[in-house]
């Protein structure tokens, strides 16, 4: 009985959905289809959190990225305790083990230090303009708090990972935006005009696709001078990623434009005397837009992985820039990672971000065709 009820309800929703086509706008249908895919919505929400944290990164981080502390080399993550109704850290005393000359850390929870929220710390400029020194959380002066441990020079891995997300997450978006512009323009030209233009562009795409991606990226990136400023290097790495990444998108756009070219409404607007520009901009590209968004979303993770891989190899972003790939360079030596597992935390961030983008892209792909 109960199952029949469920089945009937399911059939009901399908029926509703079909009758809604033509009644509701395309965007409403798309939004509804997207919301049905819970995993994609979750992926999207996680990404929103990621990007918010990246935007407010200096506020979230208790230490600046280059705050060295020779007394806390490879300090383990600080444990959080719930003492007297406050989230606190326990006092730590450092003693030298004279037998083998290593530092021994002993925690004493009788001396607890509660975390101070919205407390002053190092000064920074929010959004690059507003001078501030308030941070999400701080610990009393003299105490050290490494949520995710410290690296070889006693720098806070948590702060560095959060600040690193700015480069790693934005390079994906900016790179893909450039790819979308290149891919749409060349794909449209190729599909709309056909003939010699099409031939040249397609052969060029084939040529680019005949070179293995990572080695080609590496060759370009290695051509950048070592002493470039961080901003310049960021710009060039983005350019390299997008210069090679546009080919797939251009092919998809071309296929779409080719299909639209034979449709009646294109013919109608041409007969009405519309210029090529008008046909492309008002009739064709808006139609292809949802597909472009899908392809772009699915391309972002590859851009992120590209930057991470190049920086990991030492030819992408270089210190003093901080990105997830740069941080993972510290994790290159097995002997180091083995005893300091927290150095792998940036890797988890990469995996999480990439998974979420894939889930989001999957949801967009289903939503892009709400009539099926």
């Amino acid at each position: 009985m109960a199952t029949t009820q469920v089945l009937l309800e399911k059939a009901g929703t399908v029926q509703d959905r079909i009758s809604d086509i033509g009644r509701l706008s395309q965007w409403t249908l798309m939004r509804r289809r997207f919301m049905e895919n819970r995993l994609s919505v979750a992926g999207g929400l996680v990404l929103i959190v990621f990007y918010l944290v990246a935007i407010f990164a200096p506020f979230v981080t208790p230490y600046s990225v280059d705050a060295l502390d020779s007394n806390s080399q490879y300090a383990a993550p600080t444990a959080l305790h719930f003492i007297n109704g406050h989230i606190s850290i326990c006092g730590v005393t450092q003693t030298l083990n004279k037998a083998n000359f290593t530092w021994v850390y002993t925690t004493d929870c009788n001396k607890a230090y509660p975390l101070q929220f919205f407390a002053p710390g190092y000064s920074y400029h929010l959004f690059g303009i507003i001078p501030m020194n308030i941070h999400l959380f701080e610990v009393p002066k003299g105490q050290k708090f490494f949520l995710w441990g410290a690296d070889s020079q006693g720098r806070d891995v948590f702060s560095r990972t959060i600040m690193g997300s700015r480069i790693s997450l934005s390079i994906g978006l900016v790179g893909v935006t450039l790819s979308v512009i290149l891919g749409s323009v060349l794909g449209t030209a190729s599909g709309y005009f056909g003939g010699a233009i099409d031939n040249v562009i397609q052969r060029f795409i084939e040529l680019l696709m005949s070179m293995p991606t990572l080695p080609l990226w590496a060759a370009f990136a290695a051509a950048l001078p070592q002493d470039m400023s961080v901003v310049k290097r960021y710009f060039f790495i983005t350019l390299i990623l997008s210069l090679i990444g546009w080919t797939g998108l251009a092919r998809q756009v071309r296929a779409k434009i080719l299909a639209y070219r034979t449709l009646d409404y294109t013919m109608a607007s041409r007969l009405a005397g519309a210029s090529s520009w008008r046909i492309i901009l008002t009739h064709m590209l808006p139609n292809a837009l949802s597909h472009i968004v899908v392809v772009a979303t699915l391309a972002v993770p590859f851009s992120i992985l590209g930057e991470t891989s190049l920086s990991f190899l030492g030819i992408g972003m270089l210190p003093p820039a901080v990105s997830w790939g740069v941080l993972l360079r510290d994790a290159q030596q097995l002997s180091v990672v083995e005893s300091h597992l927290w150095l792998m935390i940036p890797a988890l961030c990469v995996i999480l971000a990439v998974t979420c983008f894939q889930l989001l892209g999957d949801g967009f792909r289903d939503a892009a065709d709400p009539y099926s």
Partner: protein
Amino acid sequence: MVNYVLRRLLYMVVTLFFISIIGFFIINLVPGSALDARINQLRAQGGEVSYQEIESLKARYGLNDPIPVKYWKWVSGVVHGDFGESFTYQEPVGSLIWSRIGFSVLLSSFALIFTWVVAIPVGVYSATHRYTVPDYVITLIQFIGVAVPDFLMALILLVVASKFFHTGVGGLFSQQYQNAPWSWARVGNLLSHMWIPVIVIAASATAWTTRVMRANLLDVLNQQYVQTARAKGLREAVVIWKHAVRNALHPLIMTLGSLLPSLISGEVIVSIVLNLPTTGPLYISSLINKDMYLAITFLMALSILLVVGNLLADLLLAWVDPRIRYE
């Protein structure tokens, strides 16, 4: 068919020609190459021998020539089997690359075989058991498999292997076989070391191919000839494996074009993490040191691997699918 193959071969040569131009140009973009460093070093040594060597280097590589002339000198050398000299190793490039390229080809091929051997049965199972618990588990593993970048998977595996199993997984040979001559024992040793890099390189490709295979088979299972086969009273296994899977394989061969670049890129970066004697580590270090003739040769070798792989895929597709016409 012969005509088709010939035309594809010609096309391949033209592609490689253009790749060599682009590659040579990129690698010569920056001034300050290892060749300059070598000449400065010789100059510092002074003496008649050094002077002669500087002159011969200048003549051979056209130090002050524009890039097109340099390119011409390099290409005419390559045609005669002279790939130039590695200035950091002070050895001819030819003697440095062959064994490394061999291992790269070996690893990539094994990774491809692994991908298909695992992805096809798993994809078929996933499609025939749609919306069951195993299908969901497989889908979840696929997502993770695609999301974890190759080098991270290699790193994680290294850590896990040494922390929990107390074994090292780096390299392709045990110590005693490192420089030993080829023998069956050495081959066995190689194989026992190779499965880890092969799995790491193939992981994301396998995950992705499983998804493609599942989708393909689901499409095919909806077609009428499958229904006909069932109506004839054939056993389900025969329907699936003999009738449905065969046709679901064609798109899989078509996706080789995008599978190969990812396997080759994966091989390069995984080799660096796992410290394997393949093209990867030497290629990246030659790029960093601006050892240009070594770098361009590796870039060309990897491109040839990709282009030849694509050609073989196309020929394979033409062979298994008679519907394809060779115009």
